[in-house]
Protein backbone atom coordinates (compact mmCIF):
# COMPACT_ATOMS: atom_id res chain seq x y z
CA UNK A 1 0.00 0.00 0.00
CA UNK A 2 2.69 2.42 1.11
CA UNK A 3 4.79 1.52 -1.90
CA UNK A 4 1.86 2.17 -4.20
CA UNK A 5 1.50 5.63 -2.70
CA UNK A 6 5.19 6.25 -2.96
CA UNK A 7 5.12 5.24 -6.61
CA UNK A 8 2.17 7.49 -7.37
CA UNK A 9 3.73 10.49 -5.61
CA UNK A 10 7.05 9.82 -7.29
CA UNK A 11 5.51 9.59 -10.74
CA UNK A 12 3.64 12.79 -10.22
CA UNK A 13 6.69 14.72 -8.98
CA UNK A 14 9.43 13.30 -11.15
CA UNK A 15 8.09 11.85 -14.42
CA UNK A 16 7.26 15.35 -15.76
CA UNK A 17 11.02 16.00 -15.84
CA UNK A 18 11.78 13.00 -18.03
CA UNK A 19 12.58 15.18 -21.04
CA UNK A 20 15.01 17.29 -19.03
CA UNK A 21 16.64 14.13 -17.69
CA UNK A 22 17.00 12.62 -21.13
CA UNK A 23 18.27 15.85 -22.66
CA UNK A 24 21.03 16.14 -20.05
CA UNK A 25 22.00 12.46 -20.27
CA UNK A 26 22.00 12.61 -24.06
CA UNK A 27 24.29 15.63 -24.12
CA UNK A 28 26.63 14.11 -21.56
CA UNK A 29 26.89 10.63 -23.05
CA UNK A 30 26.44 11.78 -26.68
CA UNK A 31 24.67 8.54 -27.52
CA UNK A 32 20.98 7.59 -27.67
CA UNK A 33 21.23 4.12 -26.19
CA UNK A 34 23.57 5.14 -23.38
CA UNK A 35 21.35 8.08 -22.53
CA UNK A 36 18.31 5.82 -22.27
CA UNK A 37 20.10 3.40 -19.98
CA UNK A 38 21.46 6.21 -17.84
CA UNK A 39 18.04 7.80 -17.47
CA UNK A 40 16.42 4.53 -16.52
CA UNK A 41 19.10 3.88 -13.92
CA UNK A 42 18.79 7.45 -12.62
CA UNK A 43 15.04 7.09 -12.19
CA UNK A 44 15.50 3.91 -10.21
CA UNK A 45 18.05 5.62 -7.99
CA UNK A 46 15.79 8.62 -7.60
CA UNK A 47 12.95 6.32 -6.60
CA UNK A 48 15.09 4.70 -3.92
CA UNK A 49 16.16 8.06 -2.53
CA UNK A 50 12.73 9.58 -2.85
CA UNK A 51 12.34 9.45 0.92
CA UNK A 52 15.00 12.16 1.12
CA UNK A 53 13.15 14.43 -1.29
CA UNK A 54 11.15 17.18 0.42
CA UNK A 55 9.24 18.59 -2.47
CA UNK A 56 11.79 21.25 -3.38
CA UNK A 57 12.63 21.70 -7.02
CA UNK A 58 12.05 18.25 -8.52
CA UNK A 59 13.89 19.05 -11.72
CA UNK A 60 17.14 20.10 -10.04
CA UNK A 61 16.94 17.17 -7.69
CA UNK A 62 16.47 14.71 -10.56
CA UNK A 63 19.11 16.34 -12.78
CA UNK A 64 21.73 16.07 -10.05
CA UNK A 65 21.03 12.33 -9.92
CA UNK A 66 21.09 12.07 -13.71
CA UNK A 67 24.43 13.83 -13.81
CA UNK A 68 25.96 11.55 -11.19
CA UNK A 69 24.60 8.49 -12.92
CA UNK A 70 26.00 9.66 -16.25
CA UNK A 71 29.45 10.18 -14.81
CA UNK A 72 29.42 6.78 -13.12
CA UNK A 73 28.22 5.25 -16.35
CA UNK A 74 30.93 6.87 -18.41
CA UNK A 75 33.58 5.93 -15.90
CA UNK A 76 32.49 2.29 -16.02
CA UNK A 77 31.93 2.08 -19.75
CA UNK A 78 34.92 3.77 -21.39
CA UNK A 79 34.98 7.49 -22.07
CA UNK A 80 38.50 8.72 -21.53
CA UNK A 81 37.13 12.23 -21.85
CA UNK A 82 36.46 12.45 -18.14
CA UNK A 83 40.15 12.97 -17.63
CA UNK A 84 40.23 16.02 -19.90
CA UNK A 85 42.37 18.70 -18.45
CA UNK A 86 40.66 21.93 -17.66
CA UNK A 87 43.74 24.00 -18.39
CA UNK A 88 42.70 25.47 -21.63
CA UNK A 89 44.69 27.57 -23.99
CA UNK A 90 42.04 30.15 -24.55
CA UNK A 91 44.24 33.11 -23.85
CA UNK A 92 45.82 32.41 -27.19
CA UNK A 93 42.60 33.33 -28.92
CA UNK A 94 42.80 36.80 -30.29
CA UNK A 95 39.64 38.77 -30.58
CA UNK A 96 40.20 39.03 -34.33
CA UNK A 97 39.64 35.28 -34.52
CA UNK A 98 36.19 35.80 -33.15
CA UNK A 99 34.66 37.47 -36.13
CA UNK A 100 31.05 38.36 -35.29
CA UNK A 101 29.87 38.33 -38.89
CA UNK A 102 31.23 34.86 -39.49
CA UNK A 103 29.64 33.79 -36.25
CA UNK A 104 26.27 35.05 -37.36
CA UNK A 105 26.39 32.92 -40.49
CA UNK A 106 27.50 29.83 -38.66
CA UNK A 107 24.93 30.15 -35.96
CA UNK A 108 22.15 29.90 -38.48
CA UNK A 109 23.21 26.33 -39.13
CA UNK A 110 21.74 24.19 -36.38
CA UNK A 111 23.74 21.15 -37.37
CA UNK A 112 27.00 23.02 -37.00
CA UNK A 113 25.99 24.45 -33.66
CA UNK A 114 24.95 21.03 -32.41
CA UNK A 115 28.21 19.51 -33.53
CA UNK A 116 30.28 22.27 -31.96
CA UNK A 117 28.46 21.94 -28.65
CA UNK A 118 28.83 18.19 -28.74
CA UNK A 119 32.56 18.48 -29.20
CA UNK A 120 33.10 20.75 -26.21
CA UNK A 121 34.78 19.14 -23.20
CA UNK A 122 32.17 17.79 -20.84
CA UNK A 123 32.81 20.35 -18.10
CA UNK A 124 31.74 23.15 -20.42
CA UNK A 125 29.07 21.19 -22.22
CA UNK A 126 27.14 20.40 -19.07
CA UNK A 127 26.93 23.97 -17.79
CA UNK A 128 25.93 25.22 -21.23
CA UNK A 129 23.21 22.62 -21.60
CA UNK A 130 21.82 23.42 -18.16
CA UNK A 131 21.98 27.15 -18.77
CA UNK A 132 20.89 27.44 -22.40
CA UNK A 133 18.65 24.45 -22.95
CA UNK A 134 17.20 24.04 -19.48
CA UNK A 135 17.39 27.77 -18.70
CA UNK A 136 18.44 27.13 -15.13
CA UNK A 137 19.78 29.73 -12.74
CA UNK A 138 23.43 29.75 -11.66
CA UNK A 139 22.29 28.65 -8.23
CA UNK A 140 20.55 25.56 -9.59
CA UNK A 141 23.45 24.76 -11.89
CA UNK A 142 25.83 25.11 -8.96
CA UNK A 143 23.82 22.68 -6.89
CA UNK A 144 23.50 20.15 -9.71
CA UNK A 145 27.16 20.23 -10.67
CA UNK A 146 28.43 20.70 -7.15
CA UNK A 147 30.46 23.76 -8.14
CA UNK A 148 30.75 27.20 -6.53
CA UNK A 149 28.67 29.94 -8.17
CA UNK A 150 31.74 31.78 -9.44
CA UNK A 151 33.01 28.66 -11.14
CA UNK A 152 29.67 28.20 -12.88
CA UNK A 153 30.01 31.67 -14.37
CA UNK A 154 33.61 31.25 -15.45
CA UNK A 155 32.89 27.83 -16.98
CA UNK A 156 30.02 29.33 -18.93
CA UNK A 157 32.33 32.12 -20.07
CA UNK A 158 35.02 29.71 -21.19
CA UNK A 159 32.55 27.28 -22.70
CA UNK A 160 30.85 29.95 -24.77
CA UNK A 161 34.18 31.27 -25.95
CA UNK A 162 35.24 27.83 -27.02
CA UNK A 163 31.95 27.35 -28.80
CA UNK A 164 32.34 30.64 -30.57
CA UNK A 165 35.86 29.75 -31.58
CA UNK A 166 34.83 26.32 -32.83
CA UNK A 167 32.11 27.84 -34.99
CA UNK A 168 34.28 30.51 -36.51
CA UNK A 169 37.07 27.99 -37.09
CA UNK A 170 34.69 25.78 -39.04
CA UNK A 171 33.88 28.77 -41.13
CA UNK A 172 37.50 29.23 -42.07
CA UNK A 173 37.85 25.54 -42.80
CA UNK A 174 34.94 25.59 -45.18
CA UNK A 175 36.05 28.62 -47.12
Amino acid sequence: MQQQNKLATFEEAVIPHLDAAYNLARWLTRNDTDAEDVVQEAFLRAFKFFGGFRGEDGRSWLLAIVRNTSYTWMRNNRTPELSTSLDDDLHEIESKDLNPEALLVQCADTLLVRQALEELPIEFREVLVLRELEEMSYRDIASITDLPLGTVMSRLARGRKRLQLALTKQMHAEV
Partner: protein
Amino acid sequence: MSCQKAEDWIHGYLDGELDLARSLEVEQHMRECEICARSYRSQVTLRSSLKGESLYYGAPEKLKKRIQSSLRKEAKSEMFPRAFGWRWLTVGASLAFMLLIGVVVWRIVPRSVGPSGDELLAQEIVSDHVRSLQMPGHLTDVLSSDQHTVKPWFDGKVDFAPPVKDFASQDFRLYGGRLEYLNNRTVATLIYQRRLHYINLYIWPAEQAGVTGEITTQRQGYNLAHWTSSGMNYWAISDLNRVELQEFARLVQQSQ
Protein backbone atom coordinates in the same frame (compact mmCIF):
# COMPACT_ATOMS: atom_id res chain seq x y z
CA MET B 1 36.68 47.04 -14.22
CA SER B 2 39.48 45.41 -16.17
CA CYS B 3 38.88 43.55 -19.43
CA GLN B 4 40.06 40.39 -17.81
CA LYS B 5 37.42 40.65 -15.14
CA ALA B 6 34.79 41.81 -17.59
CA GLU B 7 35.39 38.68 -19.65
CA ASP B 8 33.58 36.58 -17.05
CA TRP B 9 31.17 39.20 -15.75
CA ILE B 10 29.81 39.77 -19.24
CA HIS B 11 28.37 36.29 -19.02
CA GLY B 12 26.79 36.90 -15.65
CA TYR B 13 25.32 40.04 -17.18
CA LEU B 14 24.07 38.17 -20.22
CA ASP B 15 22.40 35.61 -17.97
CA GLY B 16 20.79 38.24 -15.76
CA GLU B 17 22.66 36.92 -12.74
CA LEU B 18 24.44 40.09 -11.61
CA ASP B 19 23.24 42.49 -8.95
CA LEU B 20 22.47 46.04 -10.00
CA ALA B 21 25.83 47.52 -9.04
CA ARG B 22 27.77 44.88 -10.98
CA SER B 23 25.47 45.21 -13.99
CA LEU B 24 26.10 48.94 -14.09
CA GLU B 25 29.83 48.35 -13.89
CA VAL B 26 29.67 45.94 -16.80
CA GLU B 27 27.59 48.37 -18.87
CA GLN B 28 30.00 51.16 -18.07
CA HIS B 29 32.92 48.99 -19.13
CA MET B 30 31.27 48.04 -22.41
CA ARG B 31 30.73 51.69 -23.21
CA GLU B 32 34.43 52.27 -22.80
CA CYS B 33 35.83 49.13 -24.37
CA GLU B 34 34.86 48.22 -27.91
CA ILE B 35 36.46 44.77 -27.73
CA CYS B 36 34.38 43.71 -24.77
CA ALA B 37 31.26 45.26 -26.27
CA ARG B 38 31.84 43.27 -29.43
CA SER B 39 32.42 40.12 -27.48
CA TYR B 40 29.11 40.71 -25.71
CA ARG B 41 27.27 41.14 -29.01
CA SER B 42 28.77 37.91 -30.32
CA GLN B 43 27.58 36.12 -27.23
CA VAL B 44 24.08 37.43 -27.76
CA THR B 45 24.15 36.01 -31.29
CA LEU B 46 25.55 32.72 -30.10
CA ARG B 47 23.01 32.39 -27.36
CA SER B 48 20.06 32.96 -29.67
CA SER B 49 21.29 30.08 -31.80
CA LEU B 50 21.22 27.77 -28.78
CA LYS B 51 17.66 28.65 -27.90
CA GLY B 52 14.62 26.96 -29.21
CA GLU B 53 13.74 23.35 -29.68
CA SER B 54 16.35 22.50 -32.25
CA LEU B 55 19.07 21.35 -29.85
CA TYR B 56 16.82 19.82 -27.25
CA TYR B 57 16.64 16.04 -27.06
CA GLY B 58 13.17 15.03 -25.95
CA ALA B 59 12.82 11.61 -24.34
CA PRO B 60 11.56 8.86 -26.67
CA GLU B 61 8.07 7.62 -25.80
CA LYS B 62 9.30 4.04 -25.37
CA LEU B 63 11.72 5.19 -22.68
CA LYS B 64 8.87 6.51 -20.59
CA LYS B 65 7.10 3.16 -20.78
CA ARG B 66 10.29 1.32 -19.95
CA ILE B 67 10.90 3.48 -16.91
CA GLN B 68 7.36 3.18 -15.66
CA SER B 69 7.47 -0.57 -15.85
CA SER B 70 10.84 -0.79 -14.12
CA LEU B 71 9.59 1.52 -11.37
CA ARG B 72 6.59 -0.69 -10.84
CA LYS B 73 8.88 -3.68 -10.51
CA GLU B 74 11.07 -1.80 -8.07
CA ALA B 75 8.09 -0.73 -5.97
CA LYS B 76 6.97 -4.34 -5.81
CA SER B 77 10.35 -5.62 -4.75
CA GLU B 78 10.52 -2.95 -2.06
CA MET B 79 7.22 -4.30 -0.82
CA PHE B 80 8.38 -7.92 -0.85
CA PRO B 81 12.10 -7.75 -0.33
CA ARG B 82 13.64 -10.90 -1.78
CA ALA B 83 17.16 -9.97 -2.58
CA PHE B 84 17.98 -8.62 0.84
CA GLY B 85 21.37 -9.64 1.91
CA TRP B 86 23.49 -9.72 -1.19
CA ARG B 87 24.37 -6.06 -1.05
CA TRP B 88 25.19 -6.48 2.56
CA LEU B 89 27.85 -9.07 2.19
CA THR B 90 30.51 -6.42 2.31
CA VAL B 91 29.09 -4.76 5.36
CA GLY B 92 28.23 -7.91 7.21
CA ALA B 93 25.25 -10.21 7.09
CA SER B 94 24.35 -9.26 10.63
CA LEU B 95 23.27 -5.85 9.43
CA ALA B 96 20.77 -7.41 7.06
CA PHE B 97 19.27 -9.38 9.87
CA MET B 98 18.93 -6.28 12.00
CA LEU B 99 17.33 -4.42 9.15
CA LEU B 100 14.72 -7.12 8.75
CA ILE B 101 13.96 -6.97 12.43
CA GLY B 102 13.89 -3.22 12.12
CA VAL B 103 11.36 -3.34 9.31
CA VAL B 104 9.18 -5.71 11.30
CA VAL B 105 9.34 -3.55 14.42
CA TRP B 106 8.69 -0.49 12.31
CA ARG B 107 5.53 -2.01 10.88
CA ILE B 108 4.26 -3.44 14.16
CA VAL B 109 4.87 -0.55 16.51
CA PRO B 110 1.74 1.61 16.37
CA ARG B 111 2.46 5.06 15.06
CA SER B 112 -0.56 6.67 16.60
CA VAL B 113 1.27 7.11 19.88
CA GLY B 114 2.59 10.61 19.35
CA PRO B 115 6.37 10.38 19.33
CA SER B 116 8.48 13.22 20.66
CA GLY B 117 10.74 15.32 18.48
CA ASP B 118 13.81 13.35 19.49
CA GLU B 119 12.09 10.08 18.73
CA LEU B 120 11.07 11.21 15.28
CA LEU B 121 14.60 12.39 14.68
CA ALA B 122 16.01 9.11 15.93
CA GLN B 123 13.78 7.25 13.50
CA GLU B 124 14.85 9.50 10.69
CA ILE B 125 18.47 8.90 11.60
CA VAL B 126 18.06 5.13 11.72
CA SER B 127 16.47 5.15 8.26
CA ASP B 128 19.18 7.39 6.93
CA HIS B 129 21.90 5.22 8.42
CA VAL B 130 20.38 2.10 6.88
CA ARG B 131 19.99 3.82 3.54
CA SER B 132 23.55 5.03 3.59
CA LEU B 133 24.79 1.45 3.86
CA GLN B 134 22.29 -0.02 1.45
CA MET B 135 23.31 1.70 -1.72
CA PRO B 136 26.80 1.19 -3.01
CA GLY B 137 28.51 4.54 -3.17
CA HIS B 138 25.94 6.27 -1.04
CA LEU B 139 27.91 6.16 2.18
CA THR B 140 30.25 8.99 1.25
CA ASP B 141 30.25 11.99 -1.06
CA VAL B 142 33.86 12.66 -0.21
CA LEU B 143 35.96 9.62 0.53
CA SER B 144 39.01 10.47 2.55
CA SER B 145 40.64 9.69 5.83
CA ASP B 146 42.32 13.08 5.80
CA GLN B 147 40.53 15.62 7.96
CA HIS B 148 42.09 18.40 5.89
CA THR B 149 40.34 17.07 2.81
CA VAL B 150 37.01 16.34 4.41
CA LYS B 151 36.62 19.60 6.31
CA PRO B 152 37.09 21.99 3.37
CA TRP B 153 34.78 19.81 1.29
CA PHE B 154 31.86 21.08 3.38
CA ASP B 155 32.77 24.69 2.57
CA GLY B 156 29.94 26.34 0.71
CA LYS B 157 27.80 23.20 0.95
CA VAL B 158 26.55 23.84 4.45
CA ASP B 159 26.22 27.16 6.24
CA PHE B 160 28.43 26.14 9.14
CA ALA B 161 31.85 24.59 9.60
CA PRO B 162 31.58 21.14 11.17
CA PRO B 163 34.53 20.09 13.32
CA VAL B 164 36.32 17.23 11.56
CA LYS B 165 38.86 15.08 13.41
CA ASP B 166 40.38 11.76 12.66
CA PHE B 167 40.67 9.31 15.57
CA ALA B 168 42.67 6.67 13.76
CA SER B 169 45.04 6.29 16.69
CA GLN B 170 42.09 5.30 18.86
CA ASP B 171 40.92 2.95 16.11
CA PHE B 172 38.07 5.14 14.91
CA ARG B 173 39.24 5.88 11.40
CA LEU B 174 37.77 8.83 9.54
CA TYR B 175 36.27 7.34 6.40
CA GLY B 176 34.66 10.27 4.63
CA GLY B 177 31.84 12.79 4.63
CA ARG B 178 28.56 13.49 2.91
CA LEU B 179 25.55 15.77 3.01
CA GLU B 180 22.22 14.64 4.34
CA TYR B 181 18.84 16.20 4.71
CA LEU B 182 17.59 15.62 8.25
CA ASN B 183 15.39 17.42 10.69
CA ASN B 184 14.33 19.77 7.87
CA ARG B 185 17.81 21.02 7.09
CA THR B 186 21.03 20.06 5.43
CA VAL B 187 23.40 18.46 7.89
CA ALA B 188 27.04 17.50 7.66
CA THR B 189 27.69 13.80 8.05
CA LEU B 190 31.03 12.26 8.94
CA ILE B 191 31.62 8.58 8.53
CA TYR B 192 33.99 6.72 10.81
CA GLN B 193 35.02 3.13 10.69
CA ARG B 194 35.96 0.69 13.42
CA ARG B 195 36.73 -2.80 12.22
CA LEU B 196 33.77 -3.63 9.95
CA HIS B 197 31.42 -1.19 11.63
CA TYR B 198 30.53 2.19 10.28
CA ILE B 199 29.51 5.14 12.39
CA ASN B 200 27.52 7.98 10.92
CA LEU B 201 28.03 11.20 12.85
CA TYR B 202 25.48 13.90 11.97
CA ILE B 203 26.32 17.49 12.85
CA TRP B 204 24.31 20.68 12.59
CA PRO B 205 24.11 23.95 14.52
CA ALA B 206 22.01 23.89 17.69
CA GLU B 207 19.16 26.32 17.99
CA GLN B 208 19.90 27.07 21.61
CA ALA B 209 23.27 27.59 23.16
CA GLY B 210 24.32 25.36 26.00
CA VAL B 211 25.57 21.89 26.55
CA THR B 212 23.45 18.79 26.80
CA GLY B 213 25.08 15.68 28.10
CA GLU B 214 25.21 12.60 26.03
CA ILE B 215 22.05 10.53 25.74
CA THR B 216 22.25 7.03 24.38
CA THR B 217 19.39 4.96 23.05
CA GLN B 218 18.87 1.87 21.06
CA ARG B 219 16.65 1.53 17.99
CA GLN B 220 16.16 -1.39 15.69
CA GLY B 221 19.39 -2.90 16.87
CA TYR B 222 21.42 0.24 16.40
CA ASN B 223 22.99 2.26 19.14
CA LEU B 224 22.53 6.00 19.02
CA ALA B 225 24.18 8.72 21.05
CA HIS B 226 23.37 12.39 20.90
CA TRP B 227 24.56 15.49 22.63
CA THR B 228 24.93 19.22 22.18
CA SER B 229 28.14 21.12 22.68
CA SER B 230 29.94 24.14 21.27
CA GLY B 231 26.71 25.22 19.62
CA MET B 232 26.33 22.05 17.57
CA ASN B 233 23.97 19.10 17.73
CA TYR B 234 25.62 15.73 17.34
CA TRP B 235 23.98 12.41 16.60
CA ALA B 236 26.08 9.29 16.25
CA ILE B 237 24.67 5.97 15.12
CA SER B 238 26.22 2.58 14.52
CA ASP B 239 25.76 -1.13 14.91
CA LEU B 240 28.77 -0.99 17.24
CA ASN B 241 28.08 -2.01 20.81
CA ARG B 242 27.00 0.67 23.21
CA VAL B 243 30.26 0.86 25.15
CA GLU B 244 32.34 1.46 22.05
CA LEU B 245 29.91 4.01 20.68
CA GLN B 246 30.08 5.89 23.98
CA GLU B 247 33.83 5.75 23.77
CA PHE B 248 33.57 7.32 20.34
CA ALA B 249 31.13 9.99 21.56
CA ARG B 250 33.53 10.93 24.33
CA LEU B 251 36.45 11.21 21.92
CA VAL B 252 34.45 13.62 19.75
CA GLN B 253 33.40 15.69 22.76
CA GLN B 254 36.91 15.88 24.13
CA SER B 255 38.34 16.96 20.83
CA GLN B 256 36.27 20.13 20.76
